[in-house]
């Protein structure tokens, strides 16, 4: 039960002036149930990478195995794959189109060929999972606040009951509280359903706080892959490619340089506080 990418290459508009290799020999395996963060700046290939996971973009070369099956094999059901690997795009609220919230969330299940009742049942379940208040089910999605719209859009993907949820920058444009609310919700979802969650983000602080594994993309290549502690240990290399570790990591390294006896690996506020208290006592 996993997704495996084997030597994935992807070339944009081959044979034209805009030809660009967006992914270079990417190998990855994501086991079921993992909470993974993908970081990298704009143009690093991270968005292209996640579009491969549900077959929206087809690799120029390489293989992708979903639950051991080659998704590029003749007769492989791509629409089934897309319901298994739910992909939430950046600013997903821009894809809302129905007259009310519930019908919009029903769009995915309807495309799966389910009956009206089943669709609604799943939509309600998804909205609940996404923490969307029931009193707005019949409201037009266009009248909601930004944060609420986003919840509806995420629910629209959850309603297909995916086993893997991929979120591209789910907090872009939200205020700090809205950002925390969405991420907490995603974390709860991961814990409650055991879903694999892949979170694409710019924010090191966010990623460090929630995920168990970080994949760093740079210029189309997988640059680092490991636990947050392992990855942020390479903070100097990250800086060289225009990324950075969370602020607390820097504080810890500064302290160590000033002669504190501590391990500088902390990536969250709690870890850092624990370590500082320990070294001071």
């Amino acid at each position, binding site marked *: 039960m996993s997704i495996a990418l084997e030597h994935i290459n992807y070339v944009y508009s081959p044979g034209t002036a805009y030809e660009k290799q967006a992914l270079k020999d990417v190998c990855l395996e994501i086991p079921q149930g993992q909470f993974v963060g993908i970081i990298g*700046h*704009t143009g690093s290939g991270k968005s292209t990478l996640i579009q491969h996971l549900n077959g929206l973009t087809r690799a120029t070369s390489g293989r992708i195995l979903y639950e051991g099956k080659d998704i590029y094999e003749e007769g492989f059901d791509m629409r089934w794959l897309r319901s298994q690997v739910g992909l939430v795009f950046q600013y997903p609220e821009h894809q809302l189109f129905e007259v009310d919230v519930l019908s919009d969330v029903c769009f995915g299940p309807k495309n799966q060929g389910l009956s009206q009742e089943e669709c609604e049942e799943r939509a309600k379940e998804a909205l609940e999972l996404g923490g969307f208040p029931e009193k707005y089910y019949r409201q037009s999605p266009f009248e909601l606040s930004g944060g609420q719209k986003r919840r509806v859009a995420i629910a629209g993907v959850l309603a297909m009951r995916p086993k893997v949820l991929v979120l591209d920058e789910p907090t872009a444009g939200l*205020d700090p509280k809205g950002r925390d609310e969405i991420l907490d919700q995603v974390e709860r979802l991961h814990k409650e359903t055991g879903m694999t969650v892949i979170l694409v983000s710019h924010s090191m602080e966010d990623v460090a706080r929630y995920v168990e594994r970080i994949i760093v993309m740079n210029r189309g290549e997988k640059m680092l892959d490991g636990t947050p502690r392992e990855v942020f240990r390479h903070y100097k290399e990250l800086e060289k490619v225009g990324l950075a570790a969370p*602020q607390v990591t820097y504080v810890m390294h500064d302290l160590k340089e*000033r002669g504190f006896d501590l391990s500088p690996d902390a990536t969250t506020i709690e870890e*850092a506080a624990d370590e500082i*208290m320990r070294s001071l006592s």
Partner: protein
Amino acid sequence: MEMIHAEKLIYEYDKRDEEGNVIGTNRAIDGVDIDIPQGSFVAVLGHNGSGKSTLAKHMNAILVPTGGTMWVDGRDTKDPAELWNVRQTAGMVFQNPDNQIIGTVVEEDVGFGPENLGVPTDEIWKRVEDSLRSVGMIEYRKASPNKLSGGQKQRVAIAGVIAMEPKCIVLDEPTAMLDPNGRKEVIRAVEKLRKEKKVTVILITHYMEEVIDADQVFVMDGGHIVMHGTPREIFSRVEELKSYRMDVPQVTMLAEELRRRGLDIPRGILRREELVEALCRLR
């Protein structure tokens, strides 16, 4: 001399039902008094829907108050005769980089404002060159905006405002749609402008890291100004900020956490060096 001065500012708009009938009014701004001295750097914080963008739009007369008064450089924004003067005095940069670039070539976009002001051609070229240089985008002058990154587009938008030679720039969440590198680019460009051109800068944002250098910070909630002070004063009130859906930089949070655990660390730590110093003193 006050660059921006507002007294009991109120902005109301009609609430409508599905048929478009008025069913009440919403108050986006409710009795705001604000004073922004010339040449200062002011940040306005607030969650989405707190009224901060509505306030910003009053500063260049895109919106006019339904109650109270807003003066920009001594001009009443309600006075139709002053409209274009107000807009030239207070330039505005918006959130979405794509939706504010009019030209199909970078330099033509920067020239758009001066063209509207009726600036003579030679002078337009001078201004375009000067303002593109000041945001570090001169080598892209012939480029198409569609080929630029978000941060670069925002810098072009800032250049477009600078070319109108305003006394004051209002930036309405200029970094909300950018990645961290783009954010840095924009904030650096603004910093440079502040130092070189001595313009008044009003930055609307919800990224705390961007307001550390501000002279004053206003926090808005529900159309009111609920907090006002220097960044240090504001950031030392972590719990209060959180109640307004705001956050503090991670370093400030860490300092606060250590304080909570009994360490003697001053409130309102803004930078990582400050925290490291404070901890070194404890050893």
